[in-house]
């Protein structure tokens, strides 16, 4: 190695924090400055009365009152946890033994709290480290307002009330930007009358259906045109839509509260989550598969998908699913998998370019080429069909009656007839009325013994069985069965050809297909990000989770594919005591949203041929990577205010660096308000940061995910006091939180739905507990619309435990008198009963009934997606395929991706020790893995002369400089340490997500003129997302334009050795 390279490596140590030039004061000076970060209020927090061990006399004891049961948020699994509090400090997190996610099997929910105290459940290393997410030295505890330019790292602290006044009233808020006036929320709160909303929404629908002209609309609504974004485009909706609320991790309860503000009260259609950065194309393929035929269209499918009944499956294919480290559920799934393997009940196969930890326990590992999942799956489909290894009995059922007769909870549309277009592709289903068999728009046709038979999907009395493979003409209409279309897709190539595309062998396909079809209903394909985060993600999902599982008809079966037990009706419903939807003037917002989710380009008033300026997502929503870039392009309209809650798109998204110029541009995003617990990679560009509560300080209802077969309502509740400043809203004192921000804005705007009579006749909404305790009471009410499932009152002993355990909480957090008044005396002790257990759920045994799961999907599952097949791609103008198909990776215009001659496909992986953006503060975890690595296969390393510990730089066609450009001349180079391993497919390199930070305490920040020094432990490792492909047309992260997934795994990169490790 040359001296020059040595010098470079010294310059480019990945351990170094980003190059923010500032003088670092010594610690004493810093502390004397009394900055505003977490813990400066510790003295004020010191409890007057402590719970837990208060003395050094005697031995260690375990008392029920030492614990508060709540719900983890160190990742989105949301395990039930039990937190030990000592002198007001959370010191230890254990699994909650009552919890389905944290004990296997979980103990009876009615076990007295005193008995549960000494039983601890299971929780993962991140869960254990939640203590350090909470007690983070870099926490923000007062409102920060930027004092310099966006992202410059200069802040002042300002009073909460002043901050709220500024964002509500607008004005010249940032003199350093010149005299430009910022539009405040009051001005955007333009349209307020719910009746006008309804009338306009109906007429916009009429315009889209070409039943009304824009001119007619303008005439009819002339008095309110000034409240629209653009009267010439009424389908943009009112100015209220220029307020955009975007979130990263938002769960139930808080979501209900926040959306009550954004949608129901403020009237903005722009409330967007982050789904597509995780696994959007799984959700939206799942939604499509779950849609039911109604009125000639398809609707009702939830944004959800299916997973394995891990506790009973005999064979699971973990496909792009790192199940032992992520994938919704180490504490939930690992015990079931490991016990299953040890007892030989279970056998697993792994399809993943990387040898994940589950591969280390697997029967077989198939190191597939990234993104070629559909090829491998279609090879399996072909073999299964040609060898008749599918479940004929399941697939021929065309409707509910036929399924019920076979004891099948679900049925598919595999035997339904699809009309074939002249180009040979499948279009809409044949309707019975088209061939003179009568019926309505939802009456379909199959061939039964060669004769057309009409049926309705949900008909429970007339069973109809269809012929499976049909290719014929009926009354002159060319038709094929959906299964025939699937088979033809699979028969486009030989099994050997499919295997070659996937980079595997034909024998691999056959071996796996044979095993998969050798366990009856107790085999499952379980997928995750590895399948979906590609430009072809939607169709990869249909081929894997969809086609393969449906071929064996395993849905709702014990050990099969399950949809999850859902949550209790937390927000109300028939028979429940509180209706959280009660609102004196609820608005239903209208208009195309800025990500064009669920919207039709062709029906919009801005249709101008193909390609559209940016993609439209008629089958998806919550397209995270579209929010900020769409604001940047002002497409379909400009925004005025962006609120970002618990999200870091710059860090989390692939090619997140492409968002930074827009975030820094005060013309494109005139007001950028963030809620965060620290100054993070994205919130560092904020105009205002409002400190939020951590997961150990707040309320939330985490709900569930598909792999939990039980009905579950875990509750997240305050465990410790917050260091945040106390604010006063609606005459109530509370620690600063996102709820406090919304309440304060509502108070300023005199917005219905909050404050006194916020629930109308049903009561006040002046503090968070008014909302959340009502939800807990609904959980206490239980499953039934009658009182049959109402939970018991907490005993006097349990009431004492409850009070004792909360003695350290200040009155602004816990006030028994105030709390009990929210739900009233009839419900208070039941609420305590639920809170003493951290939530409510079915007992373990209740998860299954005989050979089925108790909570069943119980409806049609679509093998063929008619809605997709009749929808055009907004970029190419072509119809989308309706059946699982193989697509190569492309840009948004459908062109092959250009990587130059870059040799390595870059993928990412989850290490259980990190949760993307928010665990770098967890020093215990960093102790185990202080930095992440660029993992390179043994074969490639030998070729490149790389050894363990070498430093490599990553570059790509769209990031040839190989760095993050953070603005103002600050860069973070894409340099990481190599780990050479046989555990990855040659030609593929990976890195663990969660390291390589440049904010979140990893960079210096100037607050009130004082410098907060960075912590170099937080800057280690590499975060290589900015090497990922920027779409050449949209100039934003690459996207699956059908399912919405942000694309992580379709980039090729160069590796260049830049130095040797110094050790």
């Amino acid at each position, binding site marked *: 190695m040359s001296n020059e390279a040595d010098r470079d490596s010294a310059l480019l140590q990945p351990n170094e924090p980003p190059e923010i030039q500032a003088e670092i004061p010594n610690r004493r000076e810093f502390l004397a400055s009394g900055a505003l970060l977490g813990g400066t209020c510790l003295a004020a927090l010191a409890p007057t009365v402590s719970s837990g061990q208060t003395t050094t006399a005697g031995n260690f004891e375990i008392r029920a009152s030492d614990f508060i049961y709540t719900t983890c948020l160190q990742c989105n699994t949301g395990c039930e946890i039990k937190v030990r509090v000592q002198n007001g400090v959370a010191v230890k997190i254990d699994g909650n033994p009552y919890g389905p996610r944290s004990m296997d099997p979980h103990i009876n929910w009615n076990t007295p709290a005193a008995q549960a105290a000494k039983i601890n459940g299971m929780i993962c290393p991140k869960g254990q480290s939640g203590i350090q997410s909470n007690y983070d030295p870099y926490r923000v505890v007062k409102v920060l307002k930027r004092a310099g330019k966006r992202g410059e790292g200069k802040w002042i602290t300002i009073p909460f009330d002043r901050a709220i006044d500024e964002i509500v009233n607008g004005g010249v808020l940032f003199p350093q930007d010149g005299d430009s006036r910022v539009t405040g929320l009051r001005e955007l709160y333009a349209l307020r009358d719910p009746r006008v909303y309804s009338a306009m929404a109906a007429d916009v629908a009429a315009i889209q259906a070409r039943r009304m002209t824009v001119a007619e609309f303008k005439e009819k609504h002339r008095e309110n045109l000034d409240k629209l974004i653009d009267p010439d485009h009424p389908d943009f909706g009112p100015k209220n839509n220029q307020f955009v609320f975007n979130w990263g991790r938002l769960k139930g309860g808080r979501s209900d509260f926040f959306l009550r503000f954004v949608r129901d009260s403020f009237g903005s259609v722009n409330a967007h989550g982050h789904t597509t950065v995780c696994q959007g194309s799984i959700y939206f393929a799942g939604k499509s598969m779950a849609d039911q035929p109604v009125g000639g269209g398809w609707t009702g499918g939830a944004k959800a998908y299916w997973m394995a009944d891990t506790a009973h499956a005999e064979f699971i294919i973990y496909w792009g699913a790192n199940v032992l480290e992520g994938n919704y559920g180490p504490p939930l799934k690992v015990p079931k998998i490991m016990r299953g393997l040890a007892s030989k009940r279970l056998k697993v196969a792994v399809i993943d370019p990387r040898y994940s930890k589950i591969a*280390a326990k697997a029967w077989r590992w198939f190191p597939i080429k990234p993104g070629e999942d559909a090829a491998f799956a279609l090879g399996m489909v072909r073999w299964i069909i040609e060898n008749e290894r599918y479940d004929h009995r399941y697939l021929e059922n065309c409707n509910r009656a036929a399924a019920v007769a076979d004891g099948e909870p679900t049925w598919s549309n595999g035997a339904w007839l699809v009309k074939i277009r002249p180009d040979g592709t499948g279009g809409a289903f044949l309707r019975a009325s088209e061939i003179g068999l009568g019926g309505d728009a939802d009456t379909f046709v199959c061939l039964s013994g060669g004769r057309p038979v009409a049926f309705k999907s949900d008909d429970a009395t007339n069973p109809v069985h269809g012929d499976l493979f049909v290719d014929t003409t009926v009354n002159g209409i060319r038709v094929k069965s959906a299964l025939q279309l699937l088979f033809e897709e699979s028969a486009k190539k030989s099994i050997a050809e499919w295997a070659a595309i996937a980079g595997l062998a034909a024998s691999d396909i056959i071996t796996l297909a044979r095993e998969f079809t050798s366990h009856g209903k107790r085999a499952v394909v379980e997928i995750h990000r590895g399948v979906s985060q590609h430009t072809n993600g939607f169709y990869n999902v249909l081929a894997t989770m969809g086609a393969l599982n449906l071929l064996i008809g395993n849905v709702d079966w014990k050990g099969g594919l399950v949809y999850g037990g859902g949550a209790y009706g937390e927000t109300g419903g028939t028979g429940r005591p509180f209706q959280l939807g009660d609102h004196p003037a609820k608005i239903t917002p209208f208009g195309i949203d800025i990500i064009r989710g669920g919207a039709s380009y062709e029906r919009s008033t801005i249709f101008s041929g193909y390609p559209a300026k940016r993609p439209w997502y008629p089958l998806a929503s919550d397209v995270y990577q579209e929010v900020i870039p769409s604001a940047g392009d002002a497409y379909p309209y400009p925004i005025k205010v962006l609120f970002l809650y618990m999200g870091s798109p710059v860090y989390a998204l692939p090619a997140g660096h492409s968002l930074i110029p827009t975030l820094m541009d005060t013309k494109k995003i005139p007001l950028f308000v963030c809620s965060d617990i620290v100054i993070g990679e994205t919130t560092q560009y904020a105009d205002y940061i409002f400190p939020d509560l951590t997961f150990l300080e707040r309320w939330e209802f985490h709900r569930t995910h598909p792999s939990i077969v039980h009905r579950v309502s875990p509750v997240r509740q305050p465990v410790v006091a917050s260091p945040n400043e106390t604010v006063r809203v609606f005459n109530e004192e509370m620690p600063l939180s996102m709820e406090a921000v919304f309440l304060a804005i509502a108070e300023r705007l005199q917005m219905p739905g909050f404050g006194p009579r916020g629930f109308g006749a049903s009561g006040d909404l002046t503090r968070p507990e008014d909302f959340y305790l009502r939800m807990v009471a609904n959980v206490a009410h239980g499953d039934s619309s009658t009182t049959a499932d109402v939970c018991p009152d907490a005993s006097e002993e349990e009431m004492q435990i409850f009070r004792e355990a909360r003695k350290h909480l200040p009155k602004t957090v816990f006030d028994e008198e105030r709390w009990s008044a929210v739900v009233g005396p009839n419900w208070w002790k039941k609420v305590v009963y639920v809170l003493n257990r951290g939530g409510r759920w079915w007992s373990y045994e209740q998860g299954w009934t005989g050979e089925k799961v108790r909570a069943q999907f119980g409806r049609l599952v679509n093998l063929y997606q008619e809605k997709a097949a009749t929808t055009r791609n907004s970029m190419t103008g072509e119809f989308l395929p309706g059946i699982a198909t193989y697509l190569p990776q492309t840009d948004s215009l459908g062109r092959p991706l250009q990587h130059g001659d870059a040799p390595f496909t870059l993928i990412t992986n989850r290490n259980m020790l990190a949760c993307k953006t928010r665990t770098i503060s967890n020093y215990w975890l960093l102790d185990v893995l202080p930095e992440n690595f660029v993992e390179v296969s043994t074969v490639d390393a030998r070729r490149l002369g790389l050894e363990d510990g070498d430093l490599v730089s990553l570059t790509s066609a769209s990031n040839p400089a190989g760095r993050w450009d953070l603005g103002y001349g600050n860069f973070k180079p894409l340099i990481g340490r190599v780990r050479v391993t046989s555990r990855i497919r040659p030609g593929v390199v990976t890195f663990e997500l969660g390291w390589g930070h440049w904010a979140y305490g990893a960079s210096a920040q100037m607050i009130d003129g004082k410098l907060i020094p960075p912590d170099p432990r937080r800057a280690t490792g590499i975060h290589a997302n900015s090497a990922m492909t920027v779409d050449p047309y949209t100039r934003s992260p690459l996207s699956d334009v059908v399912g919405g997934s942000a694309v992580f795994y379709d980039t090729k990169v160069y590796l260049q050795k830049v130095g040797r490790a110094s050790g």
Partner: protein
Amino acid sequence: MNDPNRENIQEKATPRRLFLQALAAVGSGAALATGGMELLDGTSAQAAEIPPPLTEPVGNLLVRMQRELEQSLSTGRPQWLMVVDTRKCIGCDACTIACKAENPTGPGVGFRRVIKRELPVGPRPWVIFKPINCLQCDDAPCAKAVPQGMIRKRPDGIVEFDSDRLRGAYAQAAMRACPLNQIHVDDGKTYTYDTPQPQEYEERLFFENGKWQTRKPRASQLPDSARKCNFCSHLVEAGALPACVSTCIGGVMYFGDANLRGSLVNEVTQGRRIFKHHNDMGLKPRVIYFEESMPDTPHLDCNACHY
């Protein structure tokens, strides 16, 4: 970073010589692309000697072990035993962190660690995960290395330190005597005292070796003292399982009383082949391991640590 145990906390890169040979045998680097390679079931001479796996115990084992623990505390003279089934270990380090939270330790130090090793045994990578902590040896080398009384073998089998006396040179001697590097000398370092705001959880009281302790800088008596795993004896005596045992999502560890008839630790060791660390040294450990493999995992041998 200088802790001698640290290297094993880190995931080690594997010596790749044998793997490369194996790869050469099947052709080239592209051989991996033929994928789906079955494990070498029964091809290893050692594997053939292992009896077929016994039945996996069913039910809620954490509850059962906790009940047995209380039973042993109230009625018997417990002999605590930890049985480790590495087949189910996934190397997640939940135990590592649980241990650090329950028994406060400083940066780079932990009483429990998990060895992760890639074994070059075939064309497919083979990975073993193995938790390790103080073995509570009946014949403990550490006890022999220091004056009598500083290290005590309790009646229940736990090896306990007198942390007031086992300091300085004695602590160093004990540390050096342990063949598994399971003894640490507390250096007094914390995680947050060099940050903008030291955090209270690092100052908390905890019960160790029979007395209340703190790691609060300047107030702590611990710096320079030897420390190690003691099966979370404070939890055990209060009726709860050791932190690593209960938090383990793989259900890797069985903990209980070898003296209790029908206890889970007795049940699961019945008829098993047991692996003991440094058997040649006659340590008589209270932490023992299943030797067998699952169909698709390597069986446990010295390679896990000493390859």
